[in-house]
Each structure stands twice: as C-alpha cells, then as structure tokens.
C-alpha cells in the first residue's frame, strides 16, 4: 500500500474533543504525524479582559469539563497573589480537598475514555458509574456537577454541608473497593497489557526537553510534582508520596494515574483528619487589583497549569495568560506515536487524557 495521509478528526471517535490528528501511514505503520488544533478556539484570553475579577471565575471553570475546579482554583490563587490576600486556613483545606476529589473524578473520566479507545465498553461504564459518586459529592458541596463556580478570590463560596465527612468517607471506602475491581479487569488482563506495554516510549530526557508535565512526565521516571516541588495551599503540611513509574510507556502512564487515584484517596482522608473544625472560609477581596504582575501554578490532573496575570490597577485584568499542560503535551504527540501502528494511536493519545477546552482556549 502506498503511503497516505489520514485525518483522525476533527470528527472522529478517537478524538475527545475537536481536534485533528493527521497521520501518514505506510500500511498500518505510522511514518509521520501532525496534530492540528484550533477547531475549538473561543478567544478565552481576550474574553476575560472585558470582565472584572469575580466574573472570570465561572469562565475559568469552563476551561475544562473534566477538571473545572482546578482551573478556577489556579485563577483564584493568581488573583490572590496580585491582591496580596491571605486565605483562611479552613478554606485552604477545603480547596485542597476539592482538588483531590476533582483529580479522582477527572482520572475516572480518563479511565472511561481509554476504555472505549481500547474497545472495551465495560470499563467505560464502570468508570463513569464511579465518577457519578464524586459528582454527587461535589453536588452536595456546591450544588453543581460539572462547572462548580465554587472557588472564590479569598476563599471558597460556602462551607461543607452537614454530614459531609460521613458521606465522603463512605464514598472513599466504596471507591477503594472499586479500584481493586479495576485491577482485576485491566491490570491482570493479558490483552489489556498487550495493548499498552511498550507503546509511546519517551525517555526522561526527551520528556523534560519537550516540556511534558504531570502524570505523563512522572511515568517517565522524573520525580516532579508541583504539590511536592512548589507546594501551594497546605500540601507541604500533608504526608503523601509522589507516584512515579520507570517504564516510560503507555502502560506506565496508566499505572501512574491509577496510583494517583489511590494516593488522592489517602490525601483526602488525611485532609479530613487535619482540617480545622471551624473557622472563616473566606475573606472579602478588594474590588480593584493593584498594577503589577502575578503568577500561580498548580498540579492539574493533566500536568502543570499556570496562569500569568497583568493588572493595571482597575477592576479588570489587563492580560491573563494561561499555560495549558495539554497544549504542550499534544505538541509532543508526533514524537510519541511515530513508528507505531494505527491501532496504537487511540491507546497512546488516550493516555494523555485529551481535553480540548483548555488546549485551544
């Protein structure tokens, strides 16, 4: 068969969102590839320049449907740094707890997506079923299921509802049993491992050079996690360990995310223990931010998310720039998939947990 270009996208079952992976195949082998994004460009960074600071919080939620809390969180941290606000202790704990719950929910969505990518619908339904529990927890916390609008400049919107601790512990106990089920369904299955092992190899050196972050970087054996290396909120007070894997391939990325879910459960348990029982959850922010710049970064479920804010002394940002982890990872995707088979494309790219909302903005 002659070499030919195939468009995988913008409307294709492999793409989770609107983007196009152009691949050049020789038979079944990929010889060249090129990611094309821009189908979902909404002009987010321009839009926020016309809104005042509190109005941007729900917009930050909509950067990614999978992990909306982390995006509004990183936005609020940026503005707090510019305004010089100190967040109350209890609000910090609630934020970190929501981060971890969001991480579990987002990783479950990723697990569901790779289930369909690999052709197994059972995994998709099991993972979405369990994600439902965490959406329910968020619903009882802030009333919304996907875009929470919960984080505020100077704290969080409301305190946790009554029976929150009891419900959360029940959910976590149930979820730990579910993790064993996934272990039986996927990790112990020879066919699943055949589809993942040895694919999308990227050495630690290459991964650092192309700027990968998050689980994909840690799957290459690099010990880099912003919760650990540049702790924000209360992560420096917690006792947890970083999840890394040395295999550098798709299987390692899968394992790192699964281990992270387990670790997030432990972090939430620890937060529930250490959280102050009462106290203020919010301070009132000023209307205008001073002129100057501020930057905050955090560990998104997908990698390092960063916002850079330039204020001009008014109530609206002069410029708000977003560093999306997935934009960088997708730019490196040709390095990951060249030389493998067509059937490996969903497997390798699915492990990156593609979300176009934050990538295109």
């Amino acid at each position, binding site marked *: 068969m002659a070499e*030919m270009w195939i468009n995988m996208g913008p409307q294709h079952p492999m793409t989770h969102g609107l983007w196009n992976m152009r691949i050049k195949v020789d038979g*079944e082998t990929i010889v060249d590839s090129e990611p094309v994004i821009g189908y979902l460009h909404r002009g987010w960074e321009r839009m926020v320049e016309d809104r005042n600071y509190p109005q941007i919080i729900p917009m930050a939620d909509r950067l990614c449907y999978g992990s909306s809390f982390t995006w509004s969180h990183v936005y609020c941290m940026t503005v707090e740094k510019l305004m010089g606000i100190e967040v109350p202790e209890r609000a910090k704990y609630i934020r970190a707890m929501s981060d971890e719950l969001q991480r579990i929910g987002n990783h479950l969505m990723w697990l569901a997506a790779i289930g369909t*990518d690999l052709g*197994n619908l*059972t995994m998709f339904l099991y993972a979405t079923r369990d994600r439902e529990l965490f959406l329910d927890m968020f619903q009882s916390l802030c009333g919304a299921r996907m875009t929470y609008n919960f984080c505020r400049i100077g704290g969080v919107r409301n305190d946790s509802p009554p029976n929150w601790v009891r419900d959360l512990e029940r959910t976590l106990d149930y979820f730990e049993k579910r993790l064993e089920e996934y272990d039986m369904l996927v990790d112990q299955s020879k066919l699943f491992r055949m589809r993942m092992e040895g694919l999308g190899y990227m050495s630690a050196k290459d991964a650092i050079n192309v700027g990968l972050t998050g689980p994909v970087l840690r799957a290459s054996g690099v010990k880099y996690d912003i919760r650990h290396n540049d702790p924000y909120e209360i992560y420096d007070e917690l006792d947890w360990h970083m999840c890394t894997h040395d295999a550098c391939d798709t299987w390692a990325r899968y394992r790192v995310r699964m281990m992270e879910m387990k670790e997030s459960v432990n972090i939430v348990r620890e937060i529930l223990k250490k959280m102050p029982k009462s106290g203020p959850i919010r301070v009132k922010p000023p209307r205008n931010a001073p002129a100057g710049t501020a930057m905050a970064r955090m560990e998104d479920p997908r990698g390092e998310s960063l916002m850079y804010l330039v204020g001009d002394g008014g109530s609206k940002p002069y410029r708000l720039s977003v560093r999306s982890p997935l934009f960088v990872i997708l730019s490196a995707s040709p390095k990951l998939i060249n030389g493998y*088979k067509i*059937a490996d494309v*969903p497997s390798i790219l699915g492990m990156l947990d593609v979300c176009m909302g934050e990538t295109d903005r």
Partner: protein
Amino acid sequence: MVDIVGTILRWLHLYGLADWLGSPGVLNIVTILVVALIILIVGMLVSIQLIWQDRKMLGRFMDRVGTQVGPFGLFQNFADAFKVLVKEYIVPDSADRLIYPLAPILIIGVSMAMFVTIPYSQGFYMSDSDLSVILTLAMFGVIPFAVLLGGWASNNKYTLIGGMRAAAQTCAYEVPLLLSVVSVVVLTGSMSLNDIVVYQQENVWMVVPLIIGFLVFVISMIAEVERVPFDLPEAEAELVEGWGTEYGGMRFGLIMMSEYARAFVGCSLITILFLGGWDGPFLDYIIEGAWFLLKLILVFTIFVWVRAALPRVRTDQILNICWKRLLPLAAINLFIAVFFKTMGWF
C-alpha cells in the same frame, strides 16, 4: 392448498394451467421454496434473539439495564430496524457505482444462505448434503472477499484499511478453523453435519476427546464473525466504523444483522461439531430442537462474556495469536484425533 387453487382454476376453465400446477415438478419446487422460507424465517428470528441477548447481557455485565423497548426490551431491535429503514440511501460521490451497492447484497445473501446447512433437529433441516461441513466453511470464505470489495468500492481510507484488515484476519483464521474441523471429521468419519451429530449421539460428544480443538474452534470462530476482541475490521476507535463506514440506512442495518446471522451459524457449528447438536443428555421429553437452541444460546453467552471482559487486540497481535498459538494447538489436536482413530478408540 393446491386443491383450493385447482378448484378455482377449474371454475375459471383454465384446465391446462391447473394440470401444470399439479404436476410433481412444480409441486417439488413450491415445497422447496416454502421450506427455504421457513428456514430463513427461523434463522432470522434466532439471529434477532441473539442480538437481543447480546445487548441485554452486555448491559447486565456493565451494570446497566440494557434494551428497554417492549417486554424485557424484546422490541428494541424492531424499533432500530424501523429507524434505519426510513433513513435516506446515500451513495458517496467517489464510490464505485457497480460494486458499492453489490457488496452488501453479497455479504447479506451469503450470510443468509449459510442457514441452509444447519440441522436444528433430526427432521428440521433444509439440506442434508454429504459435504455440508465443507459447504458451510466455504461460504464463510466468501465473506472476506465481499468485505474487501465493499471497503475498496466505498473509496474511503478508513474503509480500505478496514477491508484489508478483515481480509487478512479472516483468511488467517480459516486455517486453524479448518484444522480443528478436520479433527472432528477424522473421528466421526463423515462430512455431513447430520451424520456428525448422529455419531455423537451414539458415542460421545466431540468436546471430550477434542477439548483443545474445541477451544481453538471457539476462538477462531470469534475472529471469523468479527466480534470483540477480534473486531479489528470495524475498530471504531481508530477506523470510525471500519469497512462499513460509508454504508447507511437499511444496508447498514442488514449488514449488522448479517453479522449476527453469521454468529448464529458459528454458534450452531460449535454446537453441532463439538457439543452433540440436538443430543440432550437427559430429560427426553424436551424436544430436540430446544436442546439445540439451548446449547447455541449458551455458546453465544461465551461470546458475550468475552466481549464484556476484553479490549480489542492489534492487527499484528491478532496474526501472532493465530500463527504462533492457535495453529500449533490445532495441529496438536489433529495429531490427537489421528492417534485416537488409529488406536481404534473411536
């Protein structure tokens, strides 16, 4: 019935036509047509039942309800068929005008024609050829050709790759399939499906001496009817809908239906060749056809279970499994069969 027609024709003074209609040749043809129609309807009904079973059981495996229209979701398939029936029939601009409409006819026709050789019970079958095993497997061999034609004629990159995959996969899996059938033929000494079942009724089910061949045959048959984990030709994650991407409307519906028709024939072959066909182990008051259908449904349950538990494998892996695992196993199985035969144990 003929008598009523004859009376009417005589009343109309059409004596010549009445005599011709009453002649044995015409009666024979009418009988064959009626039997063929019955076999087709029964085969279609069982296939529709298999679709329902697949969807319902898959739903239960995945912790959801499954189909819901009608009692136990039995009418869902008919609702879906009606839905695709009213869809517009679109031919892509760049498709081949002659082959594109022809390929589905070939696939659906061959799939339905395979019902002919399946004996449901001692008396309920269409044809009892001496070589019905060969005939059934030969008709299975037509499918990859038709799929390749359909994929190529659609003039789409996804369909082309899907068609190539289908051809490679099904051609490769014919070999272990045939080898494990040969072992059955060696032991039973017949190539007629009816005789094979009669032999098993008198002696022992072939699954007992040929357990390896049974496993090889089941795995190859899953690949042959293109179900998960071997559904590469229509791998929706990377190839949209594989070779059938460009087919829409009732053609799509019938192609899907014909896949289950082939699954029905495959399960029937497993039942007949290895599990004693309509031979009931006990409870003589249950009719033979019911035993056959019961075993068939149980075999299909294995198919559904496999689909719920496993992901799709890759093209090179699927060929590796075939040539490096199944083929040696089938050969060993054949040696065992020949050994049993020479020792005179069967």
